[in-house]
């Protein structure tokens, strides 16, 4: 079995006892570190959620202003040969499989452009002939004709393949480790390329070396002990920030939602714990964008907007072709909890004194980044 690399190991900070005074010190830490985060994730800190929220909001406001960046996901393909126990689109699930043709993608992009999005994540399942790297490069190039910022959330690949995507106009990658717990990771991923636990941990490194500008990371909350996973995630982010100091790192908080296959998480993360995790990471990583998707219900999204969270998806479709057709031909990856349209969602943000920002990057900057060392 694979073991957790030393540089990610959270053991020294796990399961310590923290007092109320420790937590209060952590909330106002000048130079937060692993110990600060462990204190903020502790059961004791659960009693200080309001104070943590206030601190998280003031830090978010200072670094990101009174704004929320918006993006949307676009599912290119739901073909998958993977065996993730928790996924409704794993190879052994009965699902309608399809991949967008270039022409269908253009219809999707027309619809997305009409919605005024300027940032997009293109998604697929695991690497299959229907959705391989050349297919992705073509899709990125098409999408980049329509909007400024095109990123991907697909399967891990080699550095040279990431470079091909960067050259095609891709700016960033999102790749979740799912869980950093090597035992749980092995149980959850029953077969296929995804069983390469260490290769997945290393994927954001390869993407950034390949010339992408941003890496989004995360853990699928519910699979393993969230305190363990979040401490690893923090160490992973710190590693990327230090090694690729010119690259952007962001963190998302996917929480397991009801989906096909009826997977029951062994470590369910409730709303209070989710909020505690987000506030804790905001306090410990003041400058890192924290992202919340439409997996979360309206009430939770409204409450966390600007309180730790600086970036959100909106009006998302998780079916292939979902933006330009009403058909139910493809199976969705997970159920959207917040299905508000853009005007409704933006009105909510504005009522909270937050400006929705669609365009926060310009195609003038497009092309592979070079993180050269002299």
């Amino acid at each position: 079995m694979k073991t957790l690399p030393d540089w990610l190991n959270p053991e020294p900070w796990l399961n310590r006892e923290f007092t109320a005074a420790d937590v209060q010190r952590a909330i106002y830490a000048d130079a937060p570190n692993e110990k600060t985060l462990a204190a903020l994730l502790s059961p004791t800190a659960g009693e200080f959620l309001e104070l943590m929220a206030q601190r998280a909001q003031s830090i978010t406001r200072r670094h990101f202003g009174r704004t929320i960046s918006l993006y949307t996901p676009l599912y290119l393909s739901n073909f998958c040969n993977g065996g993730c126990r928790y996924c409704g689109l794993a190879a052994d699930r009965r699902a309608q499989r399809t991949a967008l043709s270039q022409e269908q993608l253009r219809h999707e992009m027309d619809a997305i452009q009409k919605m005024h999005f300027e940032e997009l994540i293109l998604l697929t399942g695991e690497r299959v002939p229907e959705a391989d790297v050349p297919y992705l490069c073509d899709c990125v190039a098409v999408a980049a004709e329509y909007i400024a910022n095109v990123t991907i959330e697909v399967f891990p690949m080699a550095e040279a393949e990431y470079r091909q995507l960067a050259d095609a106009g891709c700016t960033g990658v999102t790749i979740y480790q799912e869980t950093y717990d090597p035992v749980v990771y092995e149980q959850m991923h029953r077969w296929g390329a995804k069983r390469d636990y260490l290769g997945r941990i290393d994927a954001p490194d390869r993407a950034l070396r390949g010339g992408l500008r941003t890496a989004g990371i995360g853990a699928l909350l519910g699979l393993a002990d969230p305190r363990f996973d979040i401490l690893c995630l923090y160490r992973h982010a710190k590693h990327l920030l230090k090694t690729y100091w010119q690259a952007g790192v962001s963190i998302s908080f996917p929480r397991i939602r009801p989906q096909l296959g009826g997977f029951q998480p062994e470590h369910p993360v409730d709303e209070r714990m989710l909020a505690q995790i987000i506030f804790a990471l905001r306090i410990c990583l003041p400058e890192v964008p924290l992202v919340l998707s439409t997996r979360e219900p309206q009430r939770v999204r409204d409450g966390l907007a600007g309180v730790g969270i600086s970036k959100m998806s909106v009006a998302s479709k998780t079916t292939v072709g979902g933006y330009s057709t009403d058909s139910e031909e493809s199976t969705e990856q997970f159920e959207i909890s917040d299905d508000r349209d853009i005007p409704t969602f933006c009105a909510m943000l504005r009522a909270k004194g937050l400006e929705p920002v669609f365009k926060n990057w310009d195609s003038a900057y497009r092309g592979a980044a070079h993180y050269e060392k002299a």
Partner: protein
Amino acid sequence: MKNDLLKIGDQELGSRLFLGTGKFSSTAAMIEAVKASGTELVTVALRRFNRAQAEDDLYGPLSELKTVRLMPNTSGAMNAKEAIRAALLGRELSKSPFVKLEIHPNPHHLLPDPIETYEAAIELVKQDFLVLPYIPADPVLAKRLEDIGCAAVMPLGAAIGTGKGLATAEMIKIIVRDADIPVVVDAGLRAPSEAAAALEMGCSAVLVNSAIAAAEQPAAMGAAFKAGVEAGRAAYLAGLMPTSETAVASSPLTSFLSGSD
């Protein structure tokens, strides 16, 4: 003070307060703050120009203000090449002679890259921009940028968005002492008193964004910064009294001299 105009290249400005335009809760709040601040020069990131959607566009509403000139900035550029491309595009869209040259390869702390900034400045000066580079508070770099023809230099008071004030005050004093072009403190300010302090020490202007955008009442804070900048400038022109450590009643080391002759 009526004729106390700030000259940047061939351009003259009546206000010594420049405003950044990101981070506001709405375009309307931003416009209100711009008006209340009395600023005549605002900077807009090229990445926030959005010709496809008026509601998301910062440039359009600002370009309608008659008393304000626009200075596109290259925020988002990681290196000289990208910054030059952004500056050219910004000029094409805005027709402004100014460019705020900012190159921050690290998207998290947004601190400026002195090497790439210097290289981009050389090219942009050649292309007839009035170049205002955002730089670390480095007196040597400031002189080097002046030597190649920059219209002003904009050293940071502290990292963007931190509100730590004039953390680099000692270096800024040296930059001001040595400069023959305007020195504009950019980034880090939190309070109008800090803007006043920058003007008192001889800086020509300050550029403020977060301190106004993140205030409880942005427009009121814009007006407060206007007052701070005006007070600081007036104090500088009036000439501050010299400082001394403490009042010295006796001169123990030189009292023997009074017994001479």
